[in-house]
């Protein structure tokens, strides 16, 4: 089963194409992670999957229907997106922010309901921001703020959740916290998660499906255990590295080669090359 599918999708802002004729399938109920270098078009692609960017050509299909021809509120009930580094208006409280997640379910007649209240409370509980609910979003630490945004996404209560770099600005502990939270949502509630991550090691740990983007299209996609190789890292990121097994999770782990600092690395690299 596929949650989202693209047909010959071409994306770009001006003359130049950022993504060309892409056919992509996002598997339902799985965690999919986009990886790729800065400016490779990950955010662009994610935004177009969420109808925030109109395709130059081709289409995005959600539940068998072209999203360009589906009412936007209907889509918002099935799919939520957390853009890269969102900014809350000055003075907005966490509770007010999370409540906005219920917008897709409201109309002139249907104002705030019991169900809306429950979804908001639950979203704040799982993300652990309940104690912060009266705080102003702009007064929170980076990690607290990111959780507040994720709580808003969860309040939207959609089967598909898209997140653009949900772990940037977070310390390692909070990165793991957020990713564990998303992984729980995936396992316990069978939600489809699509996200952009910069840390390949964490991507390998949490992803069922990795999509490596380079050169305006997919370089390779599939199970991290089979596709993440030194060759892939070299071609997608232009970085030489060694791939080992993560001692904790057994998933691939990338050890980048560098010129500076420790001599031991350089020795090792020479050995590898020989």
């Amino acid at each position: 089963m596929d949650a989202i599918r693209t047909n010959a999708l071409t994306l770009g802002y001006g003359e130049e194409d950022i993504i060309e004729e892409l056919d992509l399938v996002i598997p339902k109920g799985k965690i999919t992670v986009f990886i790729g270098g800065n400016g490779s078009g990950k955010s662009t692609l994610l935004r177009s999957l969420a109808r925030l960017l109109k395709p130059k050509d081709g289409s995005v299909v959600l539940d068998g229907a072209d999203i360009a021809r589906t009412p936007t509120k209907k889509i918002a009930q099935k799919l939520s997106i957390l853009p890269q580094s969102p900014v809350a208006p000055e003075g907005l409280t966490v509770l007010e922010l999370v409540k906005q997640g219920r917008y897709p379910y409201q109309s002139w007649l249907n104002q705030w309901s019991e169900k809306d209240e429950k979804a908001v409370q639950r979203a704040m509980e799982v993300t652990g921001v309940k104690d912060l609910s009266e705080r102003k979003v702009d007064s929170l630490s980076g990690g607290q703020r990111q959780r507040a945004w994720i709580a808003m996404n969860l309040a939207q209560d959609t089967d598909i959740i898209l997140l653009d770099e949900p772990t940037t600005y977070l310390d390692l502990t909070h990165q793991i916290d957020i990713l564990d939270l998303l992984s729980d949502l995936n396992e316990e509630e069978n939600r489809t998660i699509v996200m952009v991550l910069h840390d390949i090691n964490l991507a390998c740990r949490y992803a069922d499906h990795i999509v490596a983007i380079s050169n305006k299209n997919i370089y390779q996609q599939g199970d991290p255990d089979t596709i993440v190789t030194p060759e892939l890292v070299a071609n997608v990121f232009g970085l030489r590295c060694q791939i080992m097994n993560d001692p904790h999770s057994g998933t691939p782990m990338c050890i980048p080669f560098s010129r500076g600092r420790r001599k031991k690395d350089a020795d090792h690299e020479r050995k590898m090359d020989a």
Partner: protein
Amino acid sequence: MIEKNKGKWIGLGIGSILVMFFMWGSVIWGLTKIDTQMVIDSFLHFDGSNEHIIIQDTRIPRSLIAAAVGASLAIAGAIMQGITNNPLASPSIFGVNAGASFFVVLGITAFGMTSLMSFTWLAFLGAALAVIIVYSLGTLGKDGLTPIKMTLAGAAIAALFSSLTQGMLTLNEQSLDQALFWLAGSVQGRDLDILVAVFPYILIGLVASLLIGKQINVLAMGEDLAKGLGQKTWLIKVLAALTIVLLAGGAVAVAGPIGFIGIIIPHVARWMVGIDYRWVIPYSGMLGAVLLLIADIGARYIIMPAEVPVGVMTAFIGVPFFIYIARRGINE
């Protein structure tokens, strides 16, 4: 800040009473002494006395116009600040007032227009044109709409329309007096007829502004977030722009360009009720009306028996405040 909804409703009640109090004060206070009995008499048994004429022809129009214009400009400013996320946005800074003024002056000087209806439509046209130009210029370029680009575009358009207006005036001296009077920006000496002509449009703008608050809250989170939540952002922006044109254009048609209300009042309203536009908009309306009424009453007393133009009064109050906001930073 008032935290509880109950407090906000009470504030709204107190505000409405203040508006009525100052509207009454605007009729009573001034060079000619008037008392409540005279006001009632002027309605019930009009006797053609000096006082009765002043009440009916000067004070009452002036009071009604100040309240309507103050509320309109303040709400237009609040909506502009909300949808652009820009604390400096307002009808005067973004050239909306200047656009409306230019078209009215063009109508007077170049085409000899004198009818109130033509003023109204010219003002709407000029306001709409300014909104469209500033928005397009502000969106131009790679990074899309940014507060700084939009402010620059607004300042440029305001300056352009003002110099065009000056140009029209020097080219065409016969109609200078009428145009100059209209341009001075005042609520005094204006006909009640023009308010009556424009009021239906202002009323539509006021009602629309009260309905649009919730949508502005969503849009204020940014275009991507709002779209992601399923908002038709283009529709909301078009509705907001139409509301701004009706309110600011209507206000300029009645009273000429009056600055500072549109920029200051929304800040005061947010300071009082927070950033929920369902409250910011009605509070802006109330406070805008009160400020312009007070400014107009004050204008009568400063150099009595002469009067200071009310635009000068609002500038007096507005400039220090404006500098305060600008210093706090445009991106906050």
